[in-house]
């Protein structure tokens, strides 16, 4: 056992450190900040779903905001109207959204990546007005207000023992989100390393070659769409839990852009990427909005415009700059420079011992 731990790759250790940090985070930050981090993790879950679709199977969806909306409304309606326990509604919302995504994936099969982007773009823009229509079910423009979740006694006690403070609903939401994020990231990691993941990547890198090798193209493409939507649905459901209400404007088109930004910043086709991307995509506009008013050299009229337009400008500029200069995102930058560093170190050793350096690997 000890031997196995000692021989484990460094990244396993890194995972453990990250989990411990995320577990301990609410004990050192305020309840409000825990709520913010919960939302960042929710974004990370949705981005993981998008990453499975875009990064691993090579299909582009701009409509994941719509799937989040479906998940959130499923939970909200179940919890509000039928008094189902909210925690119980989260997997239901995920499954329902997954099925919806699977069904959407069937016509999507016939579309090239470009047309799929187009159709899902339209879906994302239309979603708010589609939600408003069935007023009896969705409560129209008003939306649905949800009760703040009440932490169970066991969690309350444990939290009080550790921190000496009472657990708030925001902190409870954070831990629920973290649990879901952990399970979903673990599932994604397993998915991409095994048969289905290999098949998806084969399709992404060359559909014809994949088909010739016996990969069921239609099956895996719709599967990717369904799984991806399932992630978005669970994220949407958690989003409703953390904000305490859902209304049509909770899921504007810009949400889908935010998800895409997160996926691209973190790094497509990587497992830690969505976590980094979610944190960035969530905190970037918040911190830039907090930072701008503190800068006295910026006139106040401009500062208010920056607050409204700032996220769009930074998101847009980031998308362009990253796609041009670092298409593999932050994770790509880190692993790339790590590999370069190691090659250089090894090269230095080889020079001393008089050996030719090994063939440089292409990424």
């Amino acid at each position, binding site marked *: 056992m000890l031997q196995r731990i000692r021989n484990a790759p460094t990244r396993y250790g890194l995972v453990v450190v990250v989990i411990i940090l995320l577990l301990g985070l609410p004990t050192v930050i305020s309840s409000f900040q825990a709520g913010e981090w919960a939302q960042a993790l929710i974004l990370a879950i949705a981005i993981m779903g998008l990453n499975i679709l*875009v990064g691993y199977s*090579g299909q*582009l969806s*701009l409509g994941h905001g719509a799937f989040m909306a479906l998940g959130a409304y499923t939970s909200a309606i179940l919890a509000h109207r039928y008094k189902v326990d909210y925690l119980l509604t989260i997997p239901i919302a995920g499954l329902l959204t997954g099925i919806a995504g699977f069904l959407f994936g069937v*016509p999507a099969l*016939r*579309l*090239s*990546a*470009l*047309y799929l*982007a*187009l*159709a899902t*773009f*339209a*879906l994302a*823009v*239309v979603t708010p*007005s*589609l939600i*408003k*229509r069935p007023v009896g079910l969705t409560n129209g423009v008003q939306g649905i207000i949800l009760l703040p979740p009440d932490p169970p006694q066991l969690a309350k006690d444990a939290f009080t023992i550790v921190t000496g403070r009472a657990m708030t609903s925001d902190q409870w939401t954070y831990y629920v989100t973290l649990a879901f994020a952990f399970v979903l990231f673990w599932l994604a990691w397993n998915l991409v390393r095994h048969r289905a993941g290999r098949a998806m990547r084969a399709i992404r890198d060359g559909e*014809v070659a994949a088909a010739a090798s016996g990969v069921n193209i239609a099956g895996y493409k719709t599967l990717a769409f369904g799984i991806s939507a399932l992630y978005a649905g669970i994220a949407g459901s958690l989003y409703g839990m953390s904000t305490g209400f859902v209304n049509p404007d909770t899921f504007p*088109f*810009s949400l889908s*852009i935010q998800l*895409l930004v997160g996926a*691209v910043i973190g790094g497509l086709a990587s497992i830690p990427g969505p976590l980094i991307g979610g944190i960035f995509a969530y905190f970037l506009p918040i911190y830039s909005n907090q930072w701008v008013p503190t800068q006295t050299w910026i006139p106040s009229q401009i500062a208010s*415009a*920056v607050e*409204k*337009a*700032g*996220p*769009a*400008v*930074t*998101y*847009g*500029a*980031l*998308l*362009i700059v990253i*796609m*041009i200069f670092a*298409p593999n995102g932050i994770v790509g930058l880190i692993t790339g420079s790590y590999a370069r560093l190691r090659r250089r170190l090894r090269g230095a050793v080889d020079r001393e011992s008089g050996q030719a350096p090994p063939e440089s690997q292409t990424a």
Partner: protein
Amino acid sequence: MQEFMQQVVSGIAIGGIFASLALALVLIYNAMGLVNFAQGEMAMMATFIAFTLIDRGVSYWIAFPATLLIAFAGGVAIQRVVIRPVERAPVLTLVIVTLGLAALVNGMAGFIYGYLPRAFPSPFPVVTVNVLGVFVSYRDLGVIAVSGVVLLAIYLLLQRTTIGLTMRAAAHHPEASRLLGVNVSWMLALGWGLASAVGAVSGIMAAPILFLEPNMMQTVIIYAFAAAVLGGVDSPLGAVIGGLIVGVTVNLAGAYIPFVGGDLQLAVALAIIITVLVLKPNGLFGRPSVRRV
């Protein structure tokens, strides 16, 4: 019947707006096999430039062509600065870049001009005139006329001039064109400039109806997508006819199908997009795409 005809005519007018933007999409698609998600936002920005010019006292009929020139230059500049570095990248990358561009331009417009909707002047009065028993507003007639002129001009440019021929050659056979001495990369930039100018026409025509604000084109671009997909995304003629069909359909659906009403018209466009893509992915006039192994 008369009311029906009036709905059809105003549908043709907004269809002209969709057709211009759809044509802009087709121009770029033909040049590099890419749907430009920033086309609507670029048109919106151009409309703001026209607004600024008119606001400074420039006459409408001078501001209009001046804006088209600025939009053309802007389109060329965008292609040179933003698109060229990723020209050879996969479509996925290009789409993400144009989406980034859309967000960037949208935010910049909000940053410079704010989010308050502004009334945009129209040279055509909203007075109605009786044409063969149908009451049509001068504004609708003006939109139809201007769109018609622009579409005709683009057609003549592409089909009847050397530069049009060169552009088409560069788009269809980049390698062969390069061997024949065509500067393919600059032809792409030219295509972007042209598309940007055509899109600007649609923005300027749409602004008096929709009120000018940074998100003005967000719905128009969906209709333009529907128009381009319906007509076949590589066919300029298809974009025009698709635009007119979408305009009329959406208008009639809004007026006569109670369930659709005013706020689900956009869903009609989504339905058109999905139906066409599933049943006839090449649209009405598109060339069938052949995948070679």
